[in-house]
Protein backbone atom coordinates (compact mmCIF):
# COMPACT_ATOMS: atom_id res chain seq x y z
CA UNK A 1 0.00 0.00 0.00
CA UNK A 2 2.69 2.40 1.12
CA UNK A 3 4.85 1.19 -1.71
CA UNK A 4 2.10 1.71 -4.27
CA UNK A 5 1.71 5.27 -3.07
CA UNK A 6 5.42 5.90 -3.53
CA UNK A 7 5.32 4.61 -7.08
CA UNK A 8 2.48 6.96 -7.85
CA UNK A 9 4.42 9.79 -6.26
CA UNK A 10 7.37 9.20 -8.63
CA UNK A 11 5.10 9.01 -11.61
CA UNK A 12 3.12 12.11 -10.73
CA UNK A 13 6.02 14.36 -9.69
CA UNK A 14 8.17 13.15 -12.58
CA UNK A 15 5.32 13.68 -14.97
CA UNK A 16 4.66 17.18 -13.60
CA UNK A 17 8.28 18.32 -13.87
CA UNK A 18 8.67 16.83 -17.33
CA UNK A 19 5.37 18.40 -18.33
CA UNK A 20 6.52 21.86 -17.25
CA UNK A 21 9.83 21.50 -19.11
CA UNK A 22 8.05 20.29 -22.25
CA UNK A 23 5.60 23.17 -22.00
CA UNK A 24 8.50 25.59 -21.71
CA UNK A 25 10.13 24.10 -24.79
CA UNK A 26 6.86 24.24 -26.69
CA UNK A 27 6.26 27.87 -25.77
CA UNK A 28 9.85 28.69 -26.67
CA UNK A 29 9.26 27.54 -30.24
CA UNK A 30 6.60 30.21 -30.81
CA UNK A 31 7.46 32.92 -28.33
CA UNK A 32 10.46 34.22 -26.45
CA UNK A 33 10.28 37.55 -24.55
CA UNK A 34 13.40 38.78 -26.38
CA UNK A 35 15.35 37.66 -29.41
CA UNK A 36 17.66 35.04 -27.84
CA UNK A 37 20.58 36.17 -29.99
CA UNK A 38 20.06 39.96 -29.81
CA UNK A 39 22.98 41.61 -28.04
CA UNK A 40 22.57 44.82 -26.08
CA UNK A 41 25.74 46.25 -24.50
CA UNK A 42 23.76 48.46 -22.12
CA UNK A 43 22.25 45.35 -20.49
CA UNK A 44 25.51 43.50 -19.96
CA UNK A 45 25.14 41.35 -16.82
CA UNK A 46 21.83 43.00 -16.02
CA UNK A 47 20.36 41.42 -12.90
CA UNK A 48 17.06 39.62 -12.50
CA UNK A 49 14.16 41.96 -13.23
CA UNK A 50 10.67 41.88 -14.70
CA UNK A 51 12.08 42.73 -18.08
CA UNK A 52 14.75 40.05 -17.87
CA UNK A 53 13.38 37.23 -15.69
CA UNK A 54 16.74 35.50 -15.50
CA UNK A 55 18.98 38.50 -16.08
CA UNK A 56 21.35 39.03 -19.01
CA UNK A 57 24.63 37.46 -20.09
CA UNK A 58 28.00 38.95 -21.01
CA UNK A 59 26.67 40.19 -24.36
CA UNK A 60 23.50 41.58 -22.83
CA UNK A 61 21.37 38.76 -24.25
CA UNK A 62 18.25 37.79 -22.32
CA UNK A 63 19.05 34.60 -20.38
CA UNK A 64 15.41 33.53 -20.05
CA UNK A 65 14.94 33.62 -23.81
CA UNK A 66 18.19 31.72 -24.26
CA UNK A 67 17.17 29.12 -21.67
CA UNK A 68 13.93 28.57 -23.59
CA UNK A 69 15.84 28.09 -26.81
CA UNK A 70 18.68 26.17 -25.14
CA UNK A 71 16.39 23.62 -23.51
CA UNK A 72 14.85 23.02 -26.91
CA UNK A 73 18.27 22.32 -28.41
CA UNK A 74 19.29 20.14 -25.49
CA UNK A 75 16.01 18.24 -25.60
CA UNK A 76 16.27 17.79 -29.36
CA UNK A 77 19.82 16.46 -29.10
CA UNK A 78 18.91 14.10 -26.25
CA UNK A 79 15.78 12.85 -28.00
CA UNK A 80 17.69 12.31 -31.25
CA UNK A 81 20.43 10.45 -29.42
CA UNK A 82 17.99 8.18 -27.63
CA UNK A 83 16.09 7.59 -30.85
CA UNK A 84 19.21 6.42 -32.69
CA UNK A 85 20.35 4.37 -29.70
CA UNK A 86 16.96 2.72 -29.27
CA UNK A 87 16.36 2.09 -32.95
CA UNK A 88 19.64 0.32 -33.65
CA UNK A 89 19.79 -1.12 -30.15
CA UNK A 90 16.44 -2.84 -30.63
CA UNK A 91 17.39 -4.24 -34.02
CA UNK A 92 20.78 -5.52 -32.88
CA UNK A 93 19.46 -6.77 -29.54
CA UNK A 94 16.58 -8.57 -31.22
CA UNK A 95 18.77 -10.29 -33.80
CA UNK A 96 21.47 -11.36 -31.35
CA UNK A 97 19.08 -12.43 -28.63
CA UNK A 98 16.73 -14.30 -30.93
CA UNK A 99 19.17 -16.08 -33.21
CA UNK A 100 22.13 -16.53 -30.88
CA UNK A 101 25.02 -18.47 -32.42
CA UNK A 102 27.22 -16.79 -35.00
CA UNK A 103 25.01 -13.72 -35.43
CA UNK A 104 25.21 -13.14 -31.70
CA UNK A 105 28.97 -13.65 -31.52
CA UNK A 106 29.80 -11.28 -34.35
CA UNK A 107 27.38 -8.46 -33.50
CA UNK A 108 28.05 -8.56 -29.77
CA UNK A 109 31.82 -8.36 -30.29
CA UNK A 110 31.28 -5.22 -32.37
CA UNK A 111 29.06 -3.86 -29.61
CA UNK A 112 31.67 -4.72 -26.98
CA UNK A 113 34.26 -2.84 -28.99
CA UNK A 114 32.07 0.27 -29.09
CA UNK A 115 31.20 -0.13 -25.44
CA UNK A 116 34.86 -0.32 -24.44
CA UNK A 117 35.26 3.40 -25.19
CA UNK A 118 33.78 5.91 -22.78
CA UNK A 119 30.94 7.52 -24.72
CA UNK A 120 32.40 11.03 -24.45
CA UNK A 121 35.69 9.80 -25.85
CA UNK A 122 33.93 8.05 -28.70
CA UNK A 123 31.99 11.23 -29.42
CA UNK A 124 35.24 13.20 -29.34
CA UNK A 125 36.79 10.97 -31.98
CA UNK A 126 33.66 11.25 -34.06
CA UNK A 127 33.54 15.05 -33.79
CA UNK A 128 37.16 15.38 -34.76
CA UNK A 129 36.38 13.36 -37.88
CA UNK A 130 33.11 14.97 -38.91
CA UNK A 131 33.21 18.39 -37.30
CA UNK A 132 31.05 19.72 -34.50
CA UNK A 133 27.44 20.86 -34.46
CA UNK A 134 24.00 19.74 -33.35
CA UNK A 135 23.61 16.89 -35.82
CA UNK A 136 27.11 15.55 -35.40
CA UNK A 137 26.58 15.45 -31.65
CA UNK A 138 23.33 13.51 -32.09
CA UNK A 139 24.97 10.98 -34.37
CA UNK A 140 28.07 10.62 -32.21
CA UNK A 141 26.17 10.19 -28.95
CA UNK A 142 23.55 8.02 -30.67
CA UNK A 143 26.17 5.52 -31.79
CA UNK A 144 27.77 5.58 -28.37
CA UNK A 145 24.37 4.76 -26.86
CA UNK A 146 23.57 1.78 -29.09
CA UNK A 147 25.44 -0.84 -27.03
CA UNK A 148 23.58 -0.30 -23.77
CA UNK A 149 20.21 -0.55 -25.52
CA UNK A 150 21.34 -3.56 -27.53
CA UNK A 151 22.33 -5.39 -24.35
CA UNK A 152 19.09 -4.71 -22.58
CA UNK A 153 17.01 -5.79 -25.56
CA UNK A 154 19.18 -8.85 -26.14
CA UNK A 155 18.72 -10.15 -22.61
CA UNK A 156 14.97 -9.56 -22.87
CA UNK A 157 14.82 -11.50 -26.13
CA UNK A 158 16.80 -14.37 -24.65
CA UNK A 159 14.31 -14.46 -21.81
CA UNK A 160 11.26 -14.48 -24.07
CA UNK A 161 12.30 -16.52 -27.09
CA UNK A 162 11.68 -19.88 -25.41
CA UNK A 163 8.34 -18.94 -23.91
CA UNK A 164 5.49 -21.24 -24.85
CA UNK A 165 3.58 -18.47 -26.56
CA UNK A 166 6.54 -17.69 -28.78
CA UNK A 167 6.80 -21.36 -29.74
CA UNK A 168 3.11 -21.21 -30.36
CA UNK A 169 3.54 -18.29 -32.75
CA UNK A 170 6.15 -20.27 -34.62
CA UNK A 171 3.75 -23.19 -34.85
CA UNK A 172 1.17 -20.87 -36.34
CA UNK A 173 3.58 -20.23 -39.19
CA UNK A 174 4.74 -16.75 -38.13
CA UNK A 175 8.00 -15.62 -39.74
CA UNK A 176 11.05 -14.87 -37.60
CA UNK A 177 10.61 -11.16 -38.28
CA UNK A 178 7.01 -11.30 -37.14
CA UNK A 179 7.89 -13.27 -34.02
CA UNK A 180 10.62 -10.82 -33.06
CA UNK A 181 8.84 -7.55 -33.63
CA UNK A 182 5.16 -8.40 -33.26
CA UNK A 183 5.17 -11.14 -30.62
CA UNK A 184 8.25 -10.54 -28.47
CA UNK A 185 8.93 -6.80 -28.69
CA UNK A 186 5.67 -5.66 -27.01
CA UNK A 187 6.66 -7.75 -23.99
CA UNK A 188 9.84 -5.69 -23.57
CA UNK A 189 8.08 -2.32 -23.58
CA UNK A 190 8.24 -1.60 -19.84
CA UNK A 191 11.94 -2.41 -19.60
CA UNK A 192 12.63 -0.49 -22.79
CA UNK A 193 10.72 2.56 -21.60
CA UNK A 194 12.68 2.89 -18.39
CA UNK A 195 15.92 2.36 -20.33
CA UNK A 196 14.84 5.18 -22.63
CA UNK A 197 14.29 7.46 -19.65
CA UNK A 198 17.71 6.70 -18.21
CA UNK A 199 19.29 7.03 -21.65
CA UNK A 200 17.60 10.37 -22.12
CA UNK A 201 19.14 11.67 -18.91
CA UNK A 202 22.58 10.46 -19.84
CA UNK A 203 22.17 12.13 -23.22
CA UNK A 204 21.19 15.46 -21.62
CA UNK A 205 24.26 15.29 -19.44
CA UNK A 206 26.51 14.15 -22.28
CA UNK A 207 25.30 16.99 -24.50
CA UNK A 208 25.85 19.49 -21.70
CA UNK A 209 29.29 18.03 -21.10
CA UNK A 210 30.30 18.17 -24.74
CA UNK A 211 28.99 21.69 -25.24
CA UNK A 212 30.70 22.71 -22.02
CA UNK A 213 33.95 21.44 -23.47
CA UNK A 214 33.24 23.42 -26.60
CA UNK A 215 32.86 20.43 -28.94
CA UNK A 216 29.07 20.25 -28.91
CA UNK A 217 26.53 22.74 -30.12
CA UNK A 218 28.25 25.73 -31.70
CA UNK A 219 27.54 29.44 -31.06
CA UNK A 220 25.42 31.40 -31.57
CA UNK A 221 23.03 28.42 -31.02
CA UNK A 222 22.04 28.23 -27.39
CA UNK A 223 22.11 24.94 -25.54
CA UNK A 224 22.01 24.49 -21.80
CA UNK A 225 25.50 23.01 -21.67
CA UNK A 226 26.87 25.74 -23.93
CA UNK A 227 25.37 28.43 -21.65
CA UNK A 228 26.87 26.84 -18.56
CA UNK A 229 30.24 26.77 -20.19
CA UNK A 230 30.01 30.46 -21.12
CA UNK A 231 28.68 31.43 -17.71
CA UNK A 232 31.59 29.77 -15.99
CA UNK A 233 33.88 32.73 -16.66
CA UNK A 234 31.47 35.13 -14.94
CA UNK A 235 30.42 32.96 -12.05
CA UNK A 236 30.89 35.73 -9.48
CA UNK A 237 29.82 38.73 -11.52
CA UNK A 238 26.61 37.18 -12.76
CA UNK A 239 25.77 34.00 -10.82
CA UNK A 240 22.22 33.98 -12.24
CA UNK A 241 23.65 33.31 -15.68
CA UNK A 242 25.03 29.94 -14.50
CA UNK A 243 22.30 29.06 -12.03
CA UNK A 244 19.29 29.13 -14.34
CA UNK A 245 20.58 26.87 -17.13
CA UNK A 246 21.98 24.57 -14.44
CA UNK A 247 18.67 24.34 -12.66
CA UNK A 248 16.85 23.55 -15.89
CA UNK A 249 19.29 20.73 -16.65
CA UNK A 250 18.76 19.35 -13.16
CA UNK A 251 14.98 19.56 -13.50
CA UNK A 252 15.05 17.88 -16.89
CA UNK A 253 17.12 14.98 -15.57
CA UNK A 254 15.17 14.74 -12.33
CA UNK A 255 11.82 14.74 -14.10
CA UNK A 256 12.83 11.97 -16.46
CA UNK A 257 14.42 9.77 -13.79
CA UNK A 258 11.35 10.03 -11.58
CA UNK A 259 9.18 9.24 -14.58
CA UNK A 260 11.42 6.27 -15.44
CA UNK A 261 11.24 4.96 -11.86
CA UNK A 262 7.50 5.40 -11.88
CA UNK A 263 7.08 3.46 -15.11
CA UNK A 264 9.41 0.70 -13.97
CA UNK A 265 7.53 0.13 -10.74
CA UNK A 266 4.18 0.21 -12.53
CA UNK A 267 5.14 -3.20 -14.00
Amino acid at each position, binding site marked *: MNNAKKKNFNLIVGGAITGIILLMILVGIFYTPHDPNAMDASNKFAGVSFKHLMGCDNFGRDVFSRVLEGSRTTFFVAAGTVFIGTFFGVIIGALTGYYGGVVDEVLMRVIDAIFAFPSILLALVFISLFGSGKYQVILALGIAFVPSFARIVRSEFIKYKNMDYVKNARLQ*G*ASDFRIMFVHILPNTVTVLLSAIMIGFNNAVLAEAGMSFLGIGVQPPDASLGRMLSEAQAYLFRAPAYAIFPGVVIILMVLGFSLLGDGIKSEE
Partner: protein
Amino acid sequence: MEEKHLLEVTDLNIEFHDHLIPETVVFDFDLILDEGEIVGLVGESGSGKSMSALAIAGLLSRKDMKKRGEILFEGKDLLTCERSELRKIQGNDISVIFQEPMTSLNPVMKVGWQVEESLRIHTNLTKEERYAKAIAMLEDVELDNPEKVYNQYPHELSGGMRQRVMIAAAMICAPKILIADEPTTALDVTIQAQIVDLLKRLNKEKKTSILFISHDLSLIRQICQRVLVMKGGYIVESGPTEQIFNHPKEEYTKKLISAIPKVEPGAKFRKKG
Protein backbone atom coordinates in the same frame (compact mmCIF):
# COMPACT_ATOMS: atom_id res chain seq x y z
CA MET B 1 -2.05 -49.25 -55.68
CA GLU B 2 -0.68 -47.72 -52.52
CA GLU B 3 -3.20 -45.99 -50.35
CA LYS B 4 -2.69 -42.27 -49.70
CA HIS B 5 -2.68 -41.16 -46.10
CA LEU B 6 -3.08 -37.65 -44.73
CA LEU B 7 0.00 -38.00 -42.56
CA GLU B 8 2.55 -40.75 -42.81
CA VAL B 9 5.57 -40.81 -40.55
CA THR B 10 8.13 -43.52 -41.17
CA ASP B 11 11.31 -44.36 -39.30
CA LEU B 12 11.56 -41.02 -37.56
CA ASN B 13 14.66 -40.76 -35.41
CA ILE B 14 15.42 -37.66 -33.35
CA GLU B 15 18.91 -37.02 -32.12
CA PHE B 16 20.01 -34.04 -30.00
CA HIS B 17 23.28 -32.38 -30.81
CA ASP B 18 23.30 -29.60 -28.27
CA HIS B 19 25.55 -31.47 -25.86
CA LEU B 20 28.96 -33.03 -26.32
CA ILE B 21 27.55 -36.49 -26.78
CA PRO B 22 24.68 -36.81 -29.27
CA GLU B 23 21.61 -38.27 -27.63
CA THR B 24 18.84 -40.06 -29.46
CA VAL B 25 15.45 -39.57 -27.84
CA VAL B 26 13.11 -41.08 -30.44
CA PHE B 27 13.79 -44.29 -32.38
CA ASP B 28 12.05 -45.57 -35.52
CA PHE B 29 8.79 -43.73 -34.91
CA ASP B 30 6.00 -44.76 -37.29
CA LEU B 31 2.59 -43.17 -37.48
CA ILE B 32 -0.27 -43.08 -39.93
CA LEU B 33 -3.07 -40.59 -39.53
CA ASP B 34 -6.07 -40.52 -41.85
CA GLU B 35 -8.73 -37.90 -42.30
CA GLY B 36 -11.09 -37.60 -39.37
CA GLU B 37 -9.18 -40.05 -37.21
CA ILE B 38 -8.16 -39.60 -33.58
CA VAL B 39 -4.98 -41.42 -32.71
CA GLY B 40 -3.66 -41.61 -29.17
CA LEU B 41 -0.05 -41.54 -28.05
CA VAL B 42 0.62 -42.79 -24.52
CA GLY B 43 3.70 -43.47 -22.49
CA GLU B 44 5.43 -42.52 -19.33
CA SER B 45 7.05 -39.16 -18.78
CA GLY B 46 10.18 -38.70 -20.87
CA SER B 47 9.28 -41.42 -23.35
CA GLY B 48 9.51 -39.04 -26.30
CA LYS B 49 5.87 -38.23 -26.96
CA SER B 50 6.29 -34.46 -27.11
CA MET B 51 9.49 -34.70 -29.13
CA SER B 52 7.79 -36.81 -31.80
CA ALA B 53 4.81 -34.45 -31.87
CA LEU B 54 6.97 -31.34 -32.11
CA ALA B 55 8.97 -32.87 -34.92
CA ILE B 56 5.76 -33.49 -36.85
CA ALA B 57 4.65 -29.91 -36.18
CA GLY B 58 8.03 -28.69 -37.39
CA LEU B 59 9.04 -26.91 -34.21
CA LEU B 60 12.31 -28.63 -33.44
CA SER B 61 15.14 -26.44 -34.64
CA ARG B 62 17.06 -27.85 -37.55
CA LYS B 63 20.39 -26.85 -36.05
CA ASP B 64 20.60 -28.70 -32.76
CA MET B 65 18.79 -31.75 -33.90
CA LYS B 66 19.34 -34.43 -36.42
CA LYS B 67 16.24 -36.07 -37.69
CA ARG B 68 16.11 -39.08 -39.92
CA GLY B 69 13.13 -40.63 -41.59
CA GLU B 70 10.15 -39.15 -43.36
CA ILE B 71 7.21 -37.06 -42.29
CA LEU B 72 4.90 -37.04 -45.28
CA PHE B 73 1.99 -34.63 -45.10
CA GLU B 74 -0.18 -35.01 -48.18
CA GLY B 75 2.86 -36.43 -49.90
CA LYS B 76 5.23 -33.59 -48.94
CA ASP B 77 8.16 -34.37 -46.65
CA LEU B 78 8.13 -31.84 -43.83
CA LEU B 79 11.66 -32.76 -42.79
CA THR B 80 13.26 -31.73 -46.04
CA CYS B 81 10.97 -29.09 -47.52
CA GLU B 82 11.84 -25.39 -47.53
CA ARG B 83 11.13 -23.51 -44.33
CA SER B 84 8.80 -21.17 -46.18
CA GLU B 85 6.83 -24.22 -47.37
CA LEU B 86 6.71 -25.54 -43.83
CA ARG B 87 5.45 -22.20 -42.51
CA LYS B 88 2.57 -22.29 -44.97
CA ILE B 89 1.49 -25.60 -43.48
CA GLN B 90 2.00 -24.63 -39.83
CA GLY B 91 -1.10 -23.12 -38.28
CA ASN B 92 -2.95 -23.60 -41.53
CA ASP B 93 -2.95 -27.39 -42.03
CA ILE B 94 -1.29 -28.56 -38.83
CA SER B 95 -1.96 -26.91 -35.47
CA VAL B 96 -0.79 -27.66 -31.97
CA ILE B 97 -2.17 -27.11 -28.51
CA PHE B 98 -0.03 -27.54 -25.45
CA GLN B 99 -0.46 -28.76 -21.93
CA GLU B 100 0.00 -25.40 -20.24
CA PRO B 101 -2.76 -22.95 -21.10
CA MET B 102 -1.26 -20.53 -18.59
CA THR B 103 1.90 -19.90 -20.56
CA SER B 104 0.75 -20.57 -24.10
CA LEU B 105 -0.89 -17.19 -24.54
CA ASN B 106 1.01 -13.93 -24.91
CA PRO B 107 0.32 -11.89 -21.76
CA VAL B 108 0.46 -8.49 -23.47
CA MET B 109 -1.90 -9.26 -26.36
CA LYS B 110 -5.64 -9.38 -26.32
CA VAL B 111 -7.25 -12.79 -26.65
CA GLY B 112 -9.00 -11.86 -29.90
CA TRP B 113 -5.76 -10.74 -31.49
CA GLN B 114 -4.18 -14.08 -30.67
CA VAL B 115 -7.08 -16.10 -31.98
CA GLU B 116 -6.86 -14.19 -35.26
CA GLU B 117 -3.11 -14.58 -35.64
CA SER B 118 -3.24 -17.61 -37.96
CA LEU B 119 -5.72 -15.80 -40.19
CA ARG B 120 -3.43 -12.81 -40.35
CA ILE B 121 -0.54 -15.05 -41.37
CA HIS B 122 -2.29 -17.37 -43.78
CA THR B 123 -5.19 -15.45 -45.32
CA ASN B 124 -5.98 -12.06 -46.82
CA LEU B 125 -9.19 -11.55 -44.90
CA THR B 126 -10.13 -8.02 -43.90
CA LYS B 127 -10.23 -6.88 -40.31
CA GLU B 128 -14.01 -7.27 -40.16
CA GLU B 129 -13.95 -10.76 -41.67
CA ARG B 130 -11.29 -11.82 -39.20
CA TYR B 131 -13.29 -10.44 -36.32
CA ALA B 132 -16.40 -12.29 -37.45
CA LYS B 133 -14.46 -15.54 -37.76
CA ALA B 134 -12.79 -15.13 -34.39
CA ILE B 135 -16.09 -14.48 -32.66
CA ALA B 136 -17.65 -17.49 -34.37
CA MET B 137 -14.70 -19.65 -33.34
CA LEU B 138 -14.83 -18.46 -29.73
CA GLU B 139 -18.48 -19.34 -29.75
CA ASP B 140 -17.65 -22.71 -31.26
CA VAL B 141 -15.36 -23.61 -28.36
CA GLU B 142 -18.30 -22.89 -26.06
CA LEU B 143 -17.09 -19.70 -24.44
CA ASP B 144 -19.91 -17.57 -23.09
CA ASN B 145 -19.92 -13.98 -24.19
CA PRO B 146 -17.29 -14.24 -26.98
CA GLU B 147 -17.36 -10.47 -27.65
CA LYS B 148 -16.20 -9.84 -24.11
CA VAL B 149 -13.54 -12.57 -24.14
CA TYR B 150 -12.26 -11.17 -27.45
CA ASN B 151 -11.28 -7.94 -25.72
CA GLN B 152 -9.81 -9.50 -22.59
CA TYR B 153 -6.21 -10.27 -21.72
CA PRO B 154 -5.14 -13.85 -20.90
CA HIS B 155 -4.67 -13.15 -17.19
CA GLU B 156 -8.36 -12.30 -16.93
CA LEU B 157 -9.35 -15.85 -17.91
CA SER B 158 -9.42 -19.14 -16.01
CA GLY B 159 -7.29 -22.12 -17.06
CA GLY B 160 -10.20 -23.86 -18.73
CA MET B 161 -11.16 -20.73 -20.62
CA ARG B 162 -7.58 -20.24 -21.79
CA GLN B 163 -7.42 -23.78 -23.07
CA ARG B 164 -10.60 -23.11 -25.03
CA VAL B 165 -9.01 -19.97 -26.42
CA MET B 166 -5.95 -22.03 -27.40
CA ILE B 167 -8.19 -24.50 -29.19
CA ALA B 168 -9.98 -21.64 -30.94
CA ALA B 169 -6.65 -20.17 -32.06
CA ALA B 170 -5.46 -23.57 -33.26
CA MET B 171 -8.69 -24.38 -35.14
CA ILE B 172 -9.42 -21.02 -36.77
CA CYS B 173 -7.83 -21.91 -40.12
CA ALA B 174 -9.67 -25.26 -40.05
CA PRO B 175 -6.48 -27.35 -39.99
CA LYS B 176 -6.48 -30.93 -41.22
CA ILE B 177 -4.47 -32.09 -38.24
CA LEU B 178 -4.58 -30.98 -34.63
CA ILE B 179 -1.80 -32.14 -32.35
CA ALA B 180 -2.97 -31.99 -28.75
CA ASP B 181 -0.05 -32.49 -26.34
CA GLU B 182 -1.64 -33.37 -23.01
CA PRO B 183 -4.25 -30.66 -23.47
CA THR B 184 -6.09 -31.48 -20.26
CA THR B 185 -3.33 -32.38 -17.80
CA ALA B 186 -3.20 -28.94 -16.21
CA LEU B 187 -6.96 -28.74 -15.74
CA ASP B 188 -9.22 -30.10 -13.06
CA VAL B 189 -11.31 -33.17 -13.77
CA THR B 190 -14.66 -31.63 -14.72
CA ILE B 191 -12.99 -29.16 -17.09
CA GLN B 192 -10.94 -32.05 -18.52
CA ALA B 193 -14.09 -33.88 -19.51
CA GLN B 194 -15.52 -30.75 -21.15
CA ILE B 195 -12.36 -30.14 -23.18
CA VAL B 196 -12.27 -33.76 -24.32
CA ASP B 197 -15.91 -33.55 -25.39
CA LEU B 198 -15.15 -30.34 -27.23
CA LEU B 199 -12.25 -31.94 -29.12
CA LYS B 200 -14.45 -34.90 -29.98
CA ARG B 201 -17.16 -32.62 -31.32
CA LEU B 202 -14.75 -30.52 -33.38
CA ASN B 203 -13.29 -33.72 -34.80
CA LYS B 204 -16.74 -34.88 -35.89
CA GLU B 205 -17.97 -31.56 -37.26
CA LYS B 206 -14.83 -30.35 -39.01
CA LYS B 207 -13.25 -33.69 -39.90
CA THR B 208 -10.02 -32.58 -38.22
CA SER B 209 -7.72 -35.47 -37.46
CA ILE B 210 -6.29 -35.39 -33.96
CA LEU B 211 -3.08 -36.76 -32.54
CA PHE B 212 -3.97 -36.94 -28.87
CA ILE B 213 -1.05 -37.22 -26.47
CA SER B 214 -1.67 -38.20 -22.90
CA HIS B 215 -0.46 -40.43 -20.15
CA ASP B 216 -4.04 -40.90 -19.05
CA LEU B 217 -5.19 -44.16 -20.63
CA SER B 218 -8.80 -43.72 -19.64
CA LEU B 219 -8.97 -40.49 -21.63
CA ILE B 220 -7.36 -42.20 -24.61
CA ARG B 221 -9.91 -44.95 -24.42
CA GLN B 222 -12.74 -42.43 -24.50
CA ILE B 223 -11.78 -40.73 -27.73
CA CYS B 224 -9.13 -42.55 -29.74
CA GLN B 225 -9.71 -45.11 -32.47
CA ARG B 226 -6.09 -46.24 -32.44
CA VAL B 227 -3.27 -45.99 -29.90
CA LEU B 228 0.50 -45.99 -29.98
CA VAL B 229 2.30 -46.91 -26.78
CA MET B 230 5.76 -45.39 -26.30
CA LYS B 231 8.54 -46.29 -23.94
CA GLY B 232 12.08 -44.96 -23.82
CA GLY B 233 11.82 -43.46 -27.29
CA TYR B 234 10.41 -46.60 -28.94
CA ILE B 235 6.89 -47.45 -29.98
CA VAL B 236 6.38 -50.72 -28.16
CA GLU B 237 2.85 -51.47 -29.26
CA SER B 238 0.20 -50.04 -31.55
CA GLY B 239 -3.22 -50.94 -32.82
CA PRO B 240 -6.97 -50.29 -32.47
CA THR B 241 -7.79 -48.99 -29.00
CA GLU B 242 -10.08 -51.81 -27.92
CA GLN B 243 -7.65 -54.46 -29.06
CA ILE B 244 -4.84 -52.88 -27.08
CA PHE B 245 -7.01 -52.56 -24.03
CA ASN B 246 -8.45 -56.04 -24.15
CA HIS B 247 -5.44 -57.96 -25.37
CA PRO B 248 -2.28 -56.03 -24.61
CA LYS B 249 0.78 -57.91 -25.84
CA GLU B 250 3.52 -56.03 -24.05
CA GLU B 251 4.20 -56.25 -20.35
CA TYR B 252 4.60 -52.45 -20.29
CA THR B 253 1.16 -51.87 -21.80
CA LYS B 254 -0.40 -54.25 -19.30
CA LYS B 255 1.20 -52.29 -16.51
CA LEU B 256 -0.13 -49.00 -17.88
CA ILE B 257 -3.61 -50.47 -18.15
CA SER B 258 -3.58 -51.95 -14.68
CA ALA B 259 -2.55 -48.55 -13.37
CA ILE B 260 -5.86 -47.00 -14.44
CA PRO B 261 -7.87 -46.39 -11.29
CA LYS B 262 -10.98 -48.52 -11.58
CA VAL B 263 -14.31 -47.21 -10.49
CA GLU B 264 -16.40 -50.22 -9.59
CA PRO B 265 -20.09 -49.97 -10.22
CA GLY B 266 -21.80 -49.05 -7.00
CA ALA B 267 -18.56 -47.97 -5.39
CA LYS B 268 -19.51 -44.34 -5.30
CA PHE B 269 -22.73 -45.13 -3.46
CA ARG B 270 -20.97 -46.94 -0.69
CA LYS B 271 -21.55 -45.26 2.61
CA LYS B 272 -18.57 -43.80 4.34
CA GLY B 273 -17.61 -44.77 7.91
